[in-house]
């Protein structure tokens, strides 16, 4: 990775250290600024591709995705975290669409942002704390935050350098990348493949969803029953 990328990573990590809970509002603002600067410098250091418009859209979407992710893990309130995660999902969906994966992008939007995040929020509403919870402001050990942020930074650096192999063109392509460009028949091709080649997997995933549904309900009922039986002697 180039020098700009390295400095951007350092900025990003420093910003995260300042922004993640157990901090005052002031350091959080500074952290946010540092994170933004870091992301921008990383993106700027990335190699350019395609026409300027596409490049601009990518930068915007990438900034949105990564920035919102960083914000999601920095927010004290789970509500804010969930909302920022939804924003990050929006950016992700955008990136997917830009990759000519319109259906997947839309599915991400619908399933994640529409269903999962809403479920999160619902659970948050169930477990609405009265005041400020300590565990939302503290990590679990003195060294936990520095160690994990450093480890995460190292992970980023390692992933980046590992991706260098791509940049060198070491990895042969299986196709020329033209067939996916035709957006008009994208959905049809996807459907065709999904229900022919991956039919069994589709059926299995359907079964899995059903099992998960039954399991979730069973868990709730089971927990409630145990509570009920335990309360009987008291009553």
């Amino acid at each position, binding site marked *: 990775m180039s020098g700009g990328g390295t400095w951007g990573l350092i900025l990003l990590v420093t910003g995260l250290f300042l922004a993640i809970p157990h901090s005052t509002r002031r350091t959080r603002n500074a952290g946010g600024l540092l994170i933004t600067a870091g992301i921008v410098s990383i993106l700027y250091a990335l*190699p350019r591709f395609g026409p300027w418009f596409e490049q601009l859209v990518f930068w915007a979407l990438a900034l949105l995705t990564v920035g919102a*992710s960083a914000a*999601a893990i920095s927010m004290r309130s789970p509500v804010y975290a969930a909302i920022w995660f939804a924003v990050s999902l929006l950016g992700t969906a955008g990136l997917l669409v830009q990759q000519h994966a319109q259906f*997947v992008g839309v599915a991400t939007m619908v399933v994640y942002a529409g269903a999962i995040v809403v479920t999160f929020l619902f659970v*948050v509403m169930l477990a609405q704390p009265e005041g400020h*919870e300590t565990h939302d402001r*503290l990590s679990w050990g003195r060294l936990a935050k520095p160690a994990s942020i450093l*480890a995460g930074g190292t992970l980023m650096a390692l992933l980046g350098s590992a991706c260098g192999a791509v940049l060198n063109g070491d990895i042969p392509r299986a196709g020329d990348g033209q067939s996916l460009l035709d957006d008009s028949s994208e959905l049809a091709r996807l459907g065709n493949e999904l229900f022919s080649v991956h039919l069994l*997997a589709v059926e299995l995933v359907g079964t899995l969803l059903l099992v998960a549904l039954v399991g979730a309900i069973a868990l709730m009922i089971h927990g409630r029953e145990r509570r009920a039986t335990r309360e009987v002697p008291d009553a």
Partner: protein
Amino acid sequence: MPEASQQLFNYLIVGGLVFALGTIGFIVRRNLIVMFLCAEMMLQGVSISLVGWGRYHDRLGGQMLVLFMIAVAACEAGVALALIVMLYQKSGKLDVTFWQGVREEGRAAFVDRNVPRELDREDHWPRLTPAGIEPTLDEEAPLHRSRV
């Protein structure tokens, strides 16, 4: 084709960043719901990479995998949230450090030290309308930490 490689590189870096941020969040945060969010965030990073690779190789496999991932994530969300609700009903808290019964015998439980004062009173917290039933705390819960 160098342009395709550069494009893939861009997406991979973004996906990696999202993945790493999710990892950091998973480790640092203690709120069960936020931890779960972070896990989903890691999945997002992976799906960006997968789609990028699919584009690079001109195959639909990457998108297929992301589709299945979304389905599995939905299952996971359902089960995990059910579990979280159950845990919350038992302890009245969403703190992951509350559940450390698997620790080694004789090892002291983790207890928060130097709890921060409210430094910023003006901090505004979003308040949602409470839903569901107010959980009654489990009477045995306080004993839990000293059980092992």
